[in-house]
């Protein structure tokens, strides 16, 4: 997607349901800014309800918030978290005339595992595995100790896919560009949710701290918020040689730019624009979109669905290797999802030479062999 011209949507209203605060410098803010982007281009009005999760907003479920938005005039609703599955399915069922998007979901994927026949519910997701491979590569190029810590959110297909991607990128660059032969240590610790909810999740600040204490010098964040970067920044200010890669949001490096290796980010704007266009033009179709980067320019925010923005912490040597890696990904020379790859429990993920299908990548059942950390398993 991402190539449609903005329509004039003056008077059109869409609603945006965010799981975290709209200013989280991460996942939720990326959606929020995409909404603003669309509103600016089309003249449509955006209604935002943020912090929609049972801990922050106990009085409302997602379907209720959707109903509120519709009552306030929303003609299209974006439910922007994996966590909103139950609520958005209910809302779509209850409001068959209102088009809805469940971002990061698979309910509209006919070949997917959880196809739900709902004409008004589409899905949008970015191919963040590329962003994460780049992030991993940057980490692999930078680590001095050969140990990388990944602050993971919760365990599911998507997060395992992204951890695996980061791991593959890191290992590739560690071995190929740096010529290291010792195995790279790559550890993930899950906090239990997309962001910290005191009492229910592990505290990401402490997780980050614990990683740095036990020898990891590059942290990759998989959660919606920036604790890993902030904590690494604090350590760096104390003279330690540590770095971090935040996630989700283009401006995520801002809290500790000096040690930020860069951000893999979602750029939901183009896809959302296209969806608004289709609703305004009355040709909305409940599709499952999984949009890749714009390889011509992965920072062209008018086009790309996922991007990578290098940070000040990346050394110039690493930077040129990373550019190499990115162009390898772009032209297909490098396909890290190629066998032989095994899951943690030793079972085969990809046979020797086998290239993963979309299905195999999307539905990642476990972490890969070589990663330390818990898989959903089963």
């Amino acid at each position, binding site marked *: 997607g991402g190539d449609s011209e903005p329509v004039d949507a003056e008077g059109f209203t869409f609603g945006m349901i965010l799981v975290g*605060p709209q*200013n989280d410098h991460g996942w939720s803010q990326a959606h929020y800014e995409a909404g603003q982007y669309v509103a600016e281009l089309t003249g449509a009005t955006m209604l935002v309800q943020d912090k929609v999760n049972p801990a922050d907003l106990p009085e409302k479920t997602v379907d209720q918030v959707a109903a509120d938005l519709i009552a306030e005039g929303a003609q299209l609703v974006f439910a922007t978290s994996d966590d909103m599955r139950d609520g958005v399915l209910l809302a779509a069922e209850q409001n068959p005339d209102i088009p809805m998007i469940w971002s990061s979901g698979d309910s509209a994927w006919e070949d997917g595992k959880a196809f739900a026949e709902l004409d008004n519910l589409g899905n949008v997701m970015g191919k963040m595995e590329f962003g994460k491979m780049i992030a991993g590569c940057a980490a692999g190029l930078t680590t001095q100790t050969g140990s990388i810590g990944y602050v993971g959110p919760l365990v599911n297909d998507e997060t395992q896919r992204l951890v695996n991607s980061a791991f593959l990128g890191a290992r590739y660059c560690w071995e190929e560009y740096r010529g290291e032969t010792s195995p790279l240590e790559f550890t993930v610790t899950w906090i239990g949710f997309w962001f910290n909810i005191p009492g229910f999740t592990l505290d990401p*600040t402490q997780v980050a701290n614990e990683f740095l204490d036990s020898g990891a010098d590059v942290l990759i964040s998989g959660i919606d918020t920036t604790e890993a970067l902030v904590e690494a920044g604090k350590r760096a200010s104390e003279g330690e040689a540590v770095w971090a890669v935040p996630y989700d949001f283009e401006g995520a490096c801002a809290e500790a730019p000096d040690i930020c290796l860069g951000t893999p980010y979602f750029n939901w704007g183009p896809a959302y624009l296209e969806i608004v266009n289709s609703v305004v033009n009355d040709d909305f179709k409940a599709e499952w979109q999984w949009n890749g980067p714009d390889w011509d320019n992965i920072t062209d925010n008018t086009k790309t669905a996922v991007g990578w923005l290098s940070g000040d912490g990346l050394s110039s040597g690493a930077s040129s290797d990373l550019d190499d890696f990115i162009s390898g990904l772009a032209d297909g020379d490098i396909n890290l999802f190629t066998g032989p790859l095994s899951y943690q429990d030793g079972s085969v993920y990809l046979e020797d030479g086998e290239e993963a299908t979309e299905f195999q990548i999307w539905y990642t059942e476990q972490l890969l062999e070589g990663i330390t950390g818990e898989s959903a398993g089963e």
Partner: protein
Amino acid sequence: MDVTLASILAASTPLIFVVIGETITEKAGVINLSLDGTVLLSAMVGFAGAYESGSVIVGFAAAALVSALAALLVAYSSIALRLNQVAVGFVLFQLTGELSAFLGDPYVRIPGPTVTYRPIPLLEDIPFIGKIFFQHDLIVYGSIVLIFLTYWFMFRTRRGLKLQAIGERPEAAHSRGMPVNRLRYLYAAVGGGLVGIGGAAYSLGAKIGWSEGHTTGLGWIALAIVIFGGWHPYRAAFGVYLFGALQFSAIKLQDVFPDLTQVLGTLPFPIMIFTLVLVYSDRVRSLTDRYPALRGILGSDPPSAIGTRFDVD
């Protein structure tokens, strides 16, 4: 190992201020149940103050002020209005927590000033010890000094004895010429101020920045540690570090008990509170009666007049 210990020490710093502050307030006979909210509010105010002024000192001062006011309100309600301290504390817990979210919105996750790292020359080079104790920021050193200073004040000075007296038996303190209620205001404010410094020590040091619910739950655990610590600064500090160590081990154990990690992270809360059951059990009581030496470790006698008010005439 030394690195981990240093981290635990640093991460525990804010809670030291909170726990010592509340210990002082309770020693004077006032229980401030609002901690979980006031710590949040002071973390927010501390960050906002430092952000707006560019000076962490202003941040700490603002946080201490706000939190001292909350504690004073509890004291005032009890002394002047004859209200129940628990009731007022509980309402303040709710209100200050909500206020932190409401007023703190503009400050969510923006970079701001932080306390600066100041390793202590020479001492920092001592093997092992140097890493643990002497490579921190001033507020960490401050917390360690505070533990010893509080101990010294409480048990080695005249004013310290008075502080203990007014919370133990106010009519006796009164008969010895102490202005009981005035001192209670004073120590409520001092304790509250320390709680506020603890709150700001999160947002400016141990857990940089502000976000909604930044310190949720830690106020309750602080209240439990005060009791666990038997209203003694050393034991209270031990409780804080133990709690910190338990939280860190929970992260370490994710590989071993994958299903239980998040649960392990929350367990120090109940463990702390259930230790109290043990401490108060008749068996432990009779043990400490028989072996007074054990009382230092196992005993936990509250200041007798805690939570009550004292009226002259």
